[in-house]
């Protein structure tokens, strides 16, 4: 590391400084967009979360930590004591649990799909990819109502099962956590398939032959060769499914029937009928923190797996 001495300073250093300045100038538009679209709103949310709610929505400019306290706690109206807000905690837990389940289900369905597409002849792959993206053409609401039509008590599935004599009474699927998970899996599945396909397309399938040749069974080839090498796509897909699931609004609203709320609905409620913007802001930031923690854990966790073996 020679070269940081004063002797070599002048022309090189000056050129470097000009270079740095140009780089800052060039990135200014991006920085402005970033501030207006991300940091700015976030800052507003952060400020609102430490204020008092206005009587008819909005905020009062008075400092208060109630917004944050109310995320997991509730104050008794008469005695003023704090206790755990069961409703909020269960909604938080449902959001995390359903999002994890959705991610897992989407992976279980998306990975084989991506594998299937990646192993087709090159010409037909684009057709399969096209088919995967078709649901995006249809409005989310309509897709969600379609799912509703499938799983409601007098829906397609129950009618078929009953006419076949497999069940006597319709299975209650609509307005359950299961319904929410099915809906979210359906909606976010392409977000899992596409990144996995992208890393599988780069995957050298000759390595699979090499694995078979070296006594690896099909399962071992999948576990030791295909999965580690398509990991970037799996990580990306999981993140792309998990994050929007955690904040989902429309799907739980329609398929959960209002009583099975998720975090997104709770936040929406605070800014709407609840008229508690500070709590809504605090909940939104809580969601953001959950996402960040989950991402950190996930990325760190998968980054370690394969490097630990050695001989």
């Amino acid at each position: 590391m020679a070269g940081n001495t004063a002797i070599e300073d002048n022309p090189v250093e000056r050129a470097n400084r000009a270079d740095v300045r140009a780089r800052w100038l060039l990135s200014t538009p991006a920085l402005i967009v970033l501030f207006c679209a991300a940091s700015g709103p976030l800052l507003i949310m952060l400020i609102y979360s430490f204020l008092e709610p206005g009587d008819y929505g909005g905020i009062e400019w008075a400092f208060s930590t109630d917004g944050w306290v109310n995320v997991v706690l509730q104050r008794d109206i008469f005695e003023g004591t704090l206790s755990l807000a069961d409703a909020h905690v269960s909604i938080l837990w449902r959001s995390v649990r359903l999002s994890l389940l959705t991610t897992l289900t989407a992976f279980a369905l998306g990975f084989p799909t991506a594998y299937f597409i990646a192993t087709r002849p090159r010409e037909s792959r684009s057709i399969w990819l096209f088919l995967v993206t078709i649901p995006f053409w249809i409005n989310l609401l309509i897709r969600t109502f379609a799912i509703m039509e499938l799983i409601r008590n007098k829906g397609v599935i129950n009618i078929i099962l009953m006419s076949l004599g497999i069940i006597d009474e319709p299975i209650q699927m609509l307005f359950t956590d299961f319904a929410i998970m099915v809906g979210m899996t359906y909606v976010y599945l392409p977000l899992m398939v596409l990144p996995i396909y992208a890393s599988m397309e780069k995957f050298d399938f000759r390595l699979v032959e090499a694995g078979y040749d070296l006594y690896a069974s099909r399962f071992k080839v999948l576990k030791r060769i295909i999965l580690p090498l398509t990991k970037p796509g799996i990580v990306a897909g999981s993140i792309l499914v998990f994050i929007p699931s955690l904040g989902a609004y429309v799907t739980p609203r329609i398929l959960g029937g209002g009583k099975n709320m998720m975090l997104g609905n709770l936040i929406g409620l605070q800014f709407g009928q609840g008229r508690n913007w500070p709590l809504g802001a605090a909940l939104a930031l809580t969601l953001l923190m959950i996402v960040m923690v989950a991402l950190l854990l996930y990325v760190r966790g998968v980054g370690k797996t394969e490097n630990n073996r050695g001989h």
Partner: protein
Amino acid sequence: MDHETLQDRFSIEVREITKTFGNGATAVTAVDNVSLNIRENEFLTLLGPSGCGKTTLLRMVAGFEHPSAGQILLAGADISHLPPFKRPVNTVFQSYALFPHMTVAQNIAFGLEMQGKPEAEIHKTVNEMLDLVRMAELRDRRTDQISGGQQQRVALARALAPNPEVLLLDEPLSALDYKLRKDMQIELKRLQHETGITFIFVTHDQEEALTMSDRVAVMNAGKILQLGSPRDIYDHPAERFVANFIGDTNFLDSSISEKNGRKVTLKLVSGSEVSADLPDGFDPPSIGKKVTAVVRPEHAKVSPRGEGQLNGTLSNIVYVGTDTHYYVDIEGGSTFVARIQNSRGADVSWSVGQEIDVSIEDNAVQVLRD
């Protein structure tokens, strides 16, 4: 040891194997009713141009392709329909196919791990293999941090580590430059000698085949045209394709004037007679039959008119360092090439246009089957 001779102990027996890809009108027969017995500890090379079926044959032995008809036996047991991971056969791939997410040592250990070998044994074998291919220092490198030649060695070590009955090599040297290829040829021969494993080597490079093999099977259009030692194949090509594909050859139109067992006397276009060998399985019915004979360029030399079997005119002289090539227009139309090794005391200097004779060495003429 029983009383069987080495010749009788086959490692791989390929019995009437056919492989057809596709069906109907677009079906392509890659391997066409091939039978081949490979001896234990043998270095056998499948040699042929691309598309001749040699790689398909190798992939069927490895288990990546299943034969459309026929059987493959390993040490007497039918393995035709076993999946590759149940065959004690390992492959060195043309692309090496090293696992990019593992280190050199992890790559070599992979097969052993999959076999469920104990940790201590894996460790020991990996070290032995690293020493065998002289890669011990690079054991913890990732495979994209080493050179092509080194990757080649890792691929070899990885395939040898599980101590397979047979090692299959699919054009493993084709990606290396000339010098490295030469070194690896010697290295491969050494490895085969040290490990005592049967090697089946696929190549389109005739020089590679001749240098390394115990026996060479020359393939074309899905069939084995000739099987024999490198010397056999080179000195006694039985078919026009083999003679053409391996080395340079002069083709002579001639007719049989006398027959004595496997030896015949041929009458050349010039009227002079030479003795020649008949290929196996070819018994020309009559004296006077027209046949094609071949002579290697280095088995003939240019001599003054009246001293050789063919008369002609010297049309070109090409100096190539070690040798000089003499192009002779033979009376009767064809061009004959004689290759003479250069020496410091070369006495005769020929000149283009000179009327000369070509004299062919004794026992240097081979009759072709066609």
